């Protein structure tokens, strides 16, 4: 797509097709001849891994849907029918359920890679936004997918999350009723979630195509953040990137297989093996692990509406990143101070994840009572969430804009090849 196409049709059929629909040329230019920076490290293999995840989810999902019954009366038992009576049904379901977690592991690494190496900066803003759109649809898809087995956590998770919309002034309750298709999470909610859960992955696939298109227009970023200047800075996608991506995918599949075959329920919640019961509220409603940091941010704010706004704001910050960061240097390799703030950002996200899984009023250090601030003792998970939430937003809204103007970056190399062919830099 970028630059001149070198594709040479070899057979008569290829020539015939190339004059009518140059689709082989498109594939050749995008995945064979496409120039990739020669210094990409393994953090760059997660794009390929993500495509693999999407493929796995779509294929297993379509087969699951052949056996699944989207009704409040039948859903739970149909999933158990898949687990017990469908040939390799247990495999399909465990692949799909754990595949969602694998997908999120990969997407988080992929996004953090982008933050560290400044992959969102000009001219890659649209590429970054498209990635954020994929992430947003992924969250919607996974949330609705988790409702489908219609266990206790499916039902109560759906109830808690859909209820958030009722915090919107005036129209909130009407929107919630509209989302539910009734006055509570029920059969109609389950049916629409199934319909959307089937639809959204294909929308993701569509946005992935745009994402890759945008990528191939501007080219890949690389660990130096310096754009390739000459042919010696790049290598053709095939075989160099294909074989490296393939190796990384294979390692990723090993991790995936360990989950599927040896700990298939470790990422799920036991309560979801009890059928949904609107009359019995589980003592502790928790979302899937990949939503926990946002759940912690939601609960960190004492006011429901503000909590919801904070949660969506946390995602909005990621979208706005290209315009929040003022640094001219892309890669944090040359931004030692930015690296420290980035490290604390990672810590804050992990802590938020932990807080999301705990009861807000539980003590962080057991048995220690400190000072009571506003509504809770300081030694509680809610206060830990608040501190981390504060850092989360400060990172985007204060550190990113200010640091770029005040810091002294290290000297950056002229070209990609100069540091890599010369002295080795670490990381």
């Amino acid at each position, binding site marked *: 797509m970028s630059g001149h196409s070198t594709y040479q049709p070899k057979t008569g059929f290829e020539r015939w097709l190339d004059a009518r629909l140059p689709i082989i040329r498109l594939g050749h230019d995008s995945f064979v001849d496409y120039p990739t920076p020669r210094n990409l490290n393994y953090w760059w293999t997660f794009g390929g891994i993500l495509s693999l995840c999407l493929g796995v989810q779509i294929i297993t999902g379509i087969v699951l849907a052949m056996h699944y019954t989207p009704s409040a009366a039948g859903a739970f038992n149909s999933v158990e029918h898949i687990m017990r009576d469908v040939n390799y049904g247990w495999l399909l379901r465990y692949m799909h359920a754990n595949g969602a977690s694998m997908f999120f592991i990969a997407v988080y690494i992929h996004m953090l890679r982008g933050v560290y190496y400044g992959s969102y900066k000009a001219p890659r803003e649209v590429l970054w936004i498209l990635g954020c759109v994929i992430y947003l649809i992924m969250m919607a898809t996974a949330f609705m997918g988790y409702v489908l087995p219609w266990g206790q956590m499916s039902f109560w998770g759906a109830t808690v999350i859909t209820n958030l919309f009722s915090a919107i002034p005036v129209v909130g309750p009407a929107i919630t009723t509209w989302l539910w298709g009734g006055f509570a999470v029920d059969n109609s909610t389950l049916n629409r979630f199934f319909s959307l859960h089937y639809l959204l992955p294909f929308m993701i696939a569509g946005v992935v195509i745009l994402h890759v298109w945008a990528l191939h227009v501007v080219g890949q970023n690389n660990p130096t953040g310096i754009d390739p200047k000459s042919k010696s800075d790049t290598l053709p996608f095939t075989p*160099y990137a294909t*074989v490296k991506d393939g190796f990384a995918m294979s*390692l990723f599949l090993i991790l995936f297989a360990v989950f599927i*075959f040896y700990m*298939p329920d470790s990422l799920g919640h*036991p309560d979801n093996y009890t059928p949904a019961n609107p009359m019995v509220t589980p*003592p502790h409603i928790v979302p899937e692990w990949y939503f926990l940091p946002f759940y912690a941010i939601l609960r960190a704010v004492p006011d429901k509406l503000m909590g919801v706004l904070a949660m969506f704001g946390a995602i909005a910050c990621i979208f706005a990143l290209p315009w929040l960061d003022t640094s001219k240097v892309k890669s944090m390799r040359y931004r030692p101070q930015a690296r420290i703030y980035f*490290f604390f950002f990672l810590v804050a996200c*992990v802590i938020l994840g932990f807080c999301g899984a705990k009861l807000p009023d539980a003590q962080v250090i057991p048995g220690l009572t400190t000072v009571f601030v506003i509504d809770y003792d300081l030694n509680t*998970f809610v206060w830990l969430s608040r501190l981390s939430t504060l850092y989360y937003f400060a990172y985007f809204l204060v550190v990113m804009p200010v640091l770029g103007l005040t810091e002294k970056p290290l000297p950056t190399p002229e070209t990609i090849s100069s540091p890599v062919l010369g002295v080795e830099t670490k990381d």
Partner: protein
Amino acid sequence: MLRKVTLLAAALVLVGGPALAAAKVREPNEIAFSFEGPFGRYDQAQLQRGYKVYREVCSACHSMNLVAFRNLGDAGGPFFDPKYPNPNDNPVVKALAADTQIGDIDGETGDAIKRPGIPADKFPAPFANDAAAKASNGGVAPPDLSLIAKAREGGPAYIASLIAGFGTPPAGLTVPAGLNYNPYFPGDVSANWTGDHAHTPPGGFIAMAPPLTADQVTFDDGTKSTIKQQAEDVAAFLMWTAEPKMEERKHMGFSVLIFLILFSGLLYASYRRVWRDESH
């Protein structure tokens, strides 16, 4: 600086991990089940004993709606016999099914009838409906046991500890009528405790009476029928009903992992070869 922060974060996470909830509960006992670990398998004799405990004791109150008699003869199941790859032909399974009465509709008259079970039938439920189950159990319906081992934190170890763990309630604890004290059952007994509040007994009140007594079930393989033995055997059986494909899963996982490791090795070799002349 960074290292110090990492240590601090790690310390916070470690301390934060086992945060105590207000109400305490006794941790399930450590039980070495045969099916634990990547190569663990069900012990068929134990599954047979466990099935007997379920059928003779628990099934008086608890349904098991997801399991059919034919499943007993599936590979990995209590009565699997390689001579009968189709469990519907397995004579033990047929006999066990035929020994039950299943509600059905007479095709000629439309009357509700009872007929002997066949392997395709699901296990019969003890109560006609949830209301009947509640009415007979002091207002709390006994949960379906098909998936219970996966639906409870602690799984089979919790179940074995719970059903063998009743014992006499400590002095100073008033047990409400119709309920039973059990240290393994999550709950909060502090309102009924007259003793020292720093030492409130762990656990809660459960609507199930202690179901097991010694020698209540006679094991066909001569195993001594202690409460502990019955509890562990039925817990193993409940793990099997919750996860009947576990052996198949682990077995396939082993081949898949061997394949993936070899495949990764090959890909790594190709990667080294392709990139051998390119510095990067």
